[in-house]
């Protein structure tokens, strides 16, 4: 054996195979990690894309629904505007008199302020629904939801001689959700109900909106006094592109369903044996939401 002093075996000579193997494993792992990261990014990107699409679509149907309500909204804004103008001009006349009735003028100004706030409220609600953007889940009362939506269709109901019956739960019906999206669902159901009644003649036109607690959920239902949904179509009404309206896209109810499902709730419809159709949805509700 020749032992050359001062020249021990180098690290590479000793551990070449191990080093190569370790390096290989290291490279493979990095590659795998990169691949996973890229895949994850892609999935998230695709999810965001899908969510954006869904939001655009629901925004589009919201805009379309509001479009159907232009007459109603114009009516709701023009009423207070008319009162404001007449009040202001009455006040001008009262101020031009020798003896000024300050009490009356004060009342006029108070009425002008109240009507102005009313018109502003209609515009605020309209803007909220027309706005496009990210959703913000909050705790909300389903009874408030009903009041907000009915405020938008009041004029429409007057225009078409439809009366309203409200059967709201006496306690607040709290749920956790996106206010705009849930307003959209309810607005869609209400507009459909009104449309169903515009075609009926002879019988009285009545919209019934109910809210009630049902176990750990809260239920909102909308009943019309129209012809009802044909029995063979009941199971399809929430399918995309199903419509009974001549100019309908058939997307409204399918979007309602996806919104309610995303909120962990259920949506459905049935015919009342006596009159019209009932569309309802439930959302998780309860005391634990109160914080």
């Amino acid at each position, binding site marked *: 054996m020749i032992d050359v002093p001062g020249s021990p075996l180098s690290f590479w000579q000793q551990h070449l195979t191990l080093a190569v193997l370790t390096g290989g494993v290291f490279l493979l792992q990095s590659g795998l990690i990169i691949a996973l990261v890229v895949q994850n990014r892609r999935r998230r990107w695709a999810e965001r894309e899908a969510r954006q699409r869904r939001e655009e679509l629901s925004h589009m149907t919201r805009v379309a629904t509001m479009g159907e309500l232009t007459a109603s909204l114009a*009516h709701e804004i023009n*009423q207070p505007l008319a*009162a404001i103008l007449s009040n202001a*001009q009455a006040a001008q006349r009262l101020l031009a008199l020798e003896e000024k009735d300050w009490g009356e003028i004060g009342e*006029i100004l108070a009425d002008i302020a109240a009507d102005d706030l009313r018109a502003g409220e209609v515009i605020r609600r309209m803007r909220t629904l027309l706005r496009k953007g990210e959703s913000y889940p909050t705790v909300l009362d389903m009874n408030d939801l009903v009041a907000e939506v009915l405020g938008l269709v009041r004029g429409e109901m007057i225009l078409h001689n439809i009366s309203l019956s409200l059967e709201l739960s006496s306690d607040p019906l709290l749920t956790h959700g996106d206010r705009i999206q849930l307003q959209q669902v309810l607005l869609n159901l209400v507009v459909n109900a009104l449309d169903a009644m515009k075609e009926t003649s002879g019988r009285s036109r009545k919209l019934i909106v109910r809210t009630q607690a049902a176990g750990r959920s809260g239920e909102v239902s909308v009943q019309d006094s129209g012809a009802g949904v044909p029995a063979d179509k009941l199971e399809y009404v929430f399918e995309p592109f199903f419509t009974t309206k001549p100019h309908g896209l058939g997307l409204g109810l399918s979007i309602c369903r996806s919104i309610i499902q995303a909120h962990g709730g259920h949506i459905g419809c049935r015919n009342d044996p006596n009159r019209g159709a009932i569309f309802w949805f439930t959302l998780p509700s309860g005391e634990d939401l109160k914080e």
Partner: protein
Amino acid sequence: MNVLERKVFVVDDELSVRKSLSRLLKAAGFHVETFASASDFLKHGVEPSVSCLVLDMQMPELNGLELQAALGETDRCLPIIFITGHGDIPTSVRAMKAGATDFLAKPFHEKDLLDAIERAHQRSRQELREKAEADEVRLRLATLTSREHEVLLQVLTGQLNKQIAGTLGASEKTIKVHRGRVMHKMQVQSVADLVRLCEKAGIRVS
């Protein structure tokens, strides 16, 4: 012009609109009465006087057009000014065809409303005058005997006594006497006046 001659009725379901219009019109010197619904107004009824109706188009239950139709059946000399929160063309055309004097979209300027009321009052005044005249003519017509009435109808067609005598099977002299009585009772001097008067009462000459 007394207070009663500047009367305006306002029918609108919305309290704030009623209140503001009432204030404005009172400040402008009118006698104003407001109603929350068409049926309230119908229940109240209207005495014939120079007046007009400021009527909201869209109301629950009985709407403006339906009230207009209901009023059309009872001849009241009450011109209608429609006000509307959302005026579409077909509705306004229907309203105007049914005899509305004006159609104002809310919110409207006081000048437009006051001008419209002025026009409506003029029309109301004229319709009342015509109605009074027609009533007077009808009173005179009611004093005619049936024979005189027959003669009147013949005279209106421009026939001579001789022709009338032939048609009615009487002597020319008798017809002349009847004709004289007709002219006397109707308080007219000429056939032209008689024709004009009878037209006011709705008797048309073919």
